[in-house]
C-alpha cells in the first residue's frame, strides 16, 4: 500500500470511527433516559421524533445555543482547558480498540482498527502496548476532572474533584491489577493478540475459550473498578447531587458541560469495549462461511457491537437499581476488598500458568 492510499484510508477510518462513537454517545444518553424511565415505570422522552429518537439532536442543539458563561473568579486558562483535556483523553482510547479482523473494499485491505496494520502476507498487527496506552489515557484524564474542580474556585466543585481524583487513583490500582490475570494467560499487551488468544478451541468442545471463565474474579473486579473509574452509580460520589450540587462540573455551562458529559459516556463505551476484548472474546462469534465476503468481514463488528451494547445496558440497569455508596464505604471497598482480591487472583493465576508451562 503506497503512502497516499494509506493516509486516505487512515483518515476515512478516523472519521467513520469518531462519527459512530459520537452517535453512540448521543444515543447512549437516550437509551439511559428511556431505560431508567421504564425501570421507574415512566415513559421517558417521547416528544421529539418517533419514540423520542431525535431527543439527542435536540439536546445537542440546546447545548450549542446556550450561553457559554465563564464565572468571574475562575482560573481562566485551566477552566477552559479542563473539559478539552477530559474529552481529548477519552477520544484517544478509541484509536487503540480493534473492532474486527480486516475488511477489503475495492482491492484495498485494511484492519478494522484505527491503529491496526495489514502486512504484505495478509497478517494483522497493532500497537504492542495497546492496553498500556488506554491505561495511560485514563490516568491523564484524571487531570481534566481534578483541574475542572480546582479552577472553578467553588467549594462544591473542589470537593467533587477531590473525591473524583481520590476515587479514580484508588480504583485505577484495582483496575490495573485485575487486567494482569488476563495478561498472564495471553502473554501479550496487544489487544488484537489478546483477542486472538481467545480464539483457540473451545473448552470441553462447547464452552468458548473466553477469559471470562477462568478469570471470573478478575472480571468482577474489573467491572467494579470500571464503574468507579467512570464515576457511575453506585460510585458516582464525585457528582452526588444531594451533597455537592453537581460535583466538579457545577460551574460549567453550555458546550463545556456537554464536553464533560460526552467524555463520561465515551469512557463508558471505552470501558465496555475493553471488557469485551479482554473477557468476552472481542469480535468472536458464529460467522456462516456461505455468506458473501463483505458480510463475513462485517459480522465480527456486529458481534463486537452487540457485546458492547450488553455492557452499556448493564451500566444503565445498575444505575436504575442500586443506591449510592457512602464515601468511606467506597474507599474501604476499593482498598480493603478489591485490591487484596486482585492480588490473590494474580497469585493463583500465575501459579496455574507456571504449573501448566
Amino acid at each position, binding site marked *: 500500500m503506497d503512502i497516499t492510499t494509506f493516509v486516505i484510508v487512515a483518515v476515512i477510518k478516523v472519521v467513520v470511527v469518531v462519527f459512530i462513537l459520537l452517535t453512540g454517545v448521543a444515543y447512549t444518553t437516550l437509551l439511559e433516559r428511556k431505560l431508567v424511565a421504564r425501570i421507574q415505570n415512566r415513559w421517558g422522552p417521547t416528544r421529539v421524533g418517533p419514540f423520542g429518537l431525535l431527543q439527542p439532536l435536540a439536546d445537542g442543539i440546546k447545548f450549542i445555543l446556550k450561553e457559554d458563561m465563564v464565572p468571574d473568579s475562575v482560573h481562566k486558562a*485551566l477552566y477552559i482547558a479542563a473539559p478539552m483535556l477530559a474529552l481529548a483523553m477519552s477520544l484517544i482510547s478509541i484509536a487503540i480498540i480493534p473492532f474486527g479482523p480486516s475488511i477489503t473494499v475495492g482491492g484495498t485491505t485494511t484492519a478494522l482498527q484505527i491503529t491496526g496494520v495489514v502486512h504484505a502476507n495478509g497478517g494483522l498487527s497493532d500497537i504492542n502496548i495497546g492496553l498500556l*496506552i488506554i491505561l495511560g489515557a*485514563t490516568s491523564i484524564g484524571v*487531570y481534566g476532572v*481534578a483541574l475542572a474542580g480546582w479552577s472553578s474556585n467553588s467549594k462544591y466543585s473542589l470537593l467533587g474533584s477531590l473525591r473524583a*481524583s481520590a476515587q479514580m487513583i484508588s480504583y485505577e490500582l484495582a483496575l490495573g491489577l485485575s487486567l494482569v490475570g488476563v495478561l498472564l494467560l495471553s502473554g501479550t499487551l496487544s489487544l488484537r493478540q489478546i483477542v486472538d488468544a481467545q480464539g483457540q478451541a473451545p473448552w470441553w468442545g462447547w464452552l468458548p475459550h473466553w477469559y471470562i471463565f477462568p478469570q471470573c474474579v478478575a472480571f468482577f473486579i474489573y467491572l467494579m473498578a470500571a464503574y468507579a473509574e467512570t464515576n457511575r452509580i453506585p460510585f458516582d460520589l464525585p457528582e452526588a447531587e444531594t451533597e455537592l450540587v453537581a460535583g466538579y462540573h457545577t460551574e460549567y455551562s453550555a458546550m463545556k458541560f456537554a464536553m464533560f458529559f460526552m467524555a463520561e459516556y465515551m469512557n463508558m463505551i471505552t470501558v465496555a469495549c475493553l471488557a469485551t476484548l479482554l473477557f468476552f472474546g472481542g469480535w468472536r462469534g458464529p460467522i456462516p462461511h456461505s455468506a458473501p465476503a463483505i458480510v463475513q468481514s462485517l459480522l465480527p463488528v456486529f458481534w463486537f457491537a452487540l457485546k458492547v451494547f450488553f455492557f452499556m445496558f448493564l451500566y444503565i440497569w445498575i444505575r436504575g437499581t442500586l443506591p449510592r455508596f457512602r464515601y468511606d464505604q467506597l474507599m474501604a471497598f476499593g482498598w480493603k476488598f478489591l485490591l487484596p482480591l486482585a492480588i490473590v487472583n494474580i497469585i493463583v493465576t500465575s501459579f496455574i500458568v507456571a504449573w501448566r508451562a
Partner: protein
Amino acid sequence: MVHEILFVIFGLICVAGAVNLLVQRHPINSALSLVVVMASLALIYLLLGAEFVAAIQVIVYAGAIMVLFVFVIMLLNAGVEERSTGSKVALLLGIPGVIVLGCLVGWIMISNNQRLGGIRINTADFGDTHNIARLLFQNFLLPFEITSVLILIAIMGAVVLGRRSS
C-alpha cells in the same frame, strides 16, 4: 530524518516545560509544566523504540505521581509564591557555575564524540515488554527487589511521620 526533527521538537518542548516550571509563580502551573516535561520525555523514549518505558513513564509519572502533587496543591490551596529579591551569592556563584558546567558537559560530549557513539537500535524487538521483563526479573533481579524494599521503607516512614502529628 523524521526522527531527528521529532527529537528536536520534543526536546525543545521538554526544556521549555522545565524552564516554565521554574518561572511560573503559581504551584499548580509549575506542576502542570512538570507533566509536560514527563510527557515529552515519554515521547523521546518512544522515538528511541522503547515503547514500554514510554507508556510506563506516562502512567506512573504523569498519571500517578503528578496527580498526587496536583492533589496536594489543591488540598493545601497553596497561593501564589512571593518573590524575594534574590541572594547575591546565587548571582555571583550560580550563574558562572552554570556556565562552567554547561561548557564542561558540552566539551566532554564533543571531544569524546567518537568514543561515546550514538544509541544503536540493532534488533526489532529492542525495548519491548519481554526484553524489559527479562532485564528486570533475570539480569537485574536483586537491585530491582532491593529498590522495592527501599520504597516500602519510604512508605513506612511517611506513615510514621503522619501518625506522630495526630
